[in-house]
């Protein structure tokens, strides 16, 4: 009967409407919750990478200054490796979490850094305060 059908429609509509209203509010809440949560995680991870790369960069650039103008053959080999390291670091998009070669490039930089350190015969003690890869030689 038409009356029953109308009633049924009204019930279904009301049912959907209540769900929809709750959904709308939840969505808004969830959006900002997700933003906050995402940012907290992102900040930690970004800082970890920034800290490590910054360390290598500061170390490399300072050593470039310290080795400046040295003419011996051993020093020129050091300079070559150093310049390669600096090049890698400058090219690395440290603030982009979506970079598809993030881990490979980071590993290559770490390797080059270790190579440079062994050429120098030094063992840097990088007290990396953010949780994660501590450097130890």
């Amino acid at each position: 009967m038409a009356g029953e059908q109308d009633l049924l429609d009204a019930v279904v509509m009301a049912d959907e409407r209540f769900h929809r209203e709750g959904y709308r509010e939840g969505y808004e809440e969830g959006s900002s919750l997700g933003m906050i949560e995402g940012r907290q995680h992102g900040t930690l991870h970004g800082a970890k990478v920034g800290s490590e790369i910054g360390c290598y960069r500061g170390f490399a650039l300072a050593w470039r200054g310290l080795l400046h103008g040295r003419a011996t053959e051993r020093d020129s080999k050091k300079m070559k490796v150093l310049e390669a390291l600096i090049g890698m670091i400058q090219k690395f998009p440290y603030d982009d979490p979506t970079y598809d070669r993030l881990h490979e490039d980071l590993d290559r930089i770490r390797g080059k850094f270790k190579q440079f350190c062994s050429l120098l015969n030094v063992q840097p003690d990088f007290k990396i305060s953010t949780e994660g890869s501590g450097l130890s030689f």
Partner: protein
Amino acid sequence: MSWVQAVSLVQGAEEEGDVFDEEADESLLVQREWRSHMQRRVKEGYRDGIDAGKAVTLQQGFNQGYKEGAEVIINYGQLRGTLSALLSWCHLHDNSSALISKINNLLDAVGQCEEYVLRHLKSITSQPHVVDLLDSIQDMDLCHVAPAEEKIDEAKDERFCENNAEFNKNCSKNLSLVDCSSLECCRAQEHAHPENPSLTWILEQTASLVKQLGVSVDILQHLKQL
């Protein structure tokens, strides 16, 4: 008022006056069932909505936070790397242990600064929302709030961005902790935070150290942006 809030209010009221009445009208029973069913639907919808909303912005938030974290902290990393270079230089040239321990102290100081800044970066992201305040205002039943609602919603986003921009501006231009602690948007609960060495002081000490080592201050060029 929000539908979700209405649900909890009604439920609260019902639980209080829940007396078993043998003469209860059947229609009253049906009404109650209806109401509780609809309340359930609102709650389900709310949960589904939260999940959906979160899924959309989680990655977005992550990318934003990542960029901010990296950009702010990289400068501290550079300072640490520079000091480490000086330290290794000292070790190679058998320099006095006094200088070496000085460098180690500076390294510790930078580490502290870095931790401090990172903590503040994290606290920034958990600010109260204007939306929450708006609900409280609405509950107070002040009728002139209604037309202002739309403006406040826009202002919410603006203010969030503004605060972040302000923080970024302050942090990237001048990482001195003296400035960081005066940022209103930080709202740090750690008012009684122990004395932190200022970045400016550390930089000055580093420069004087370089001179003591008989090296040109030019090697600190890359730290100028600090």
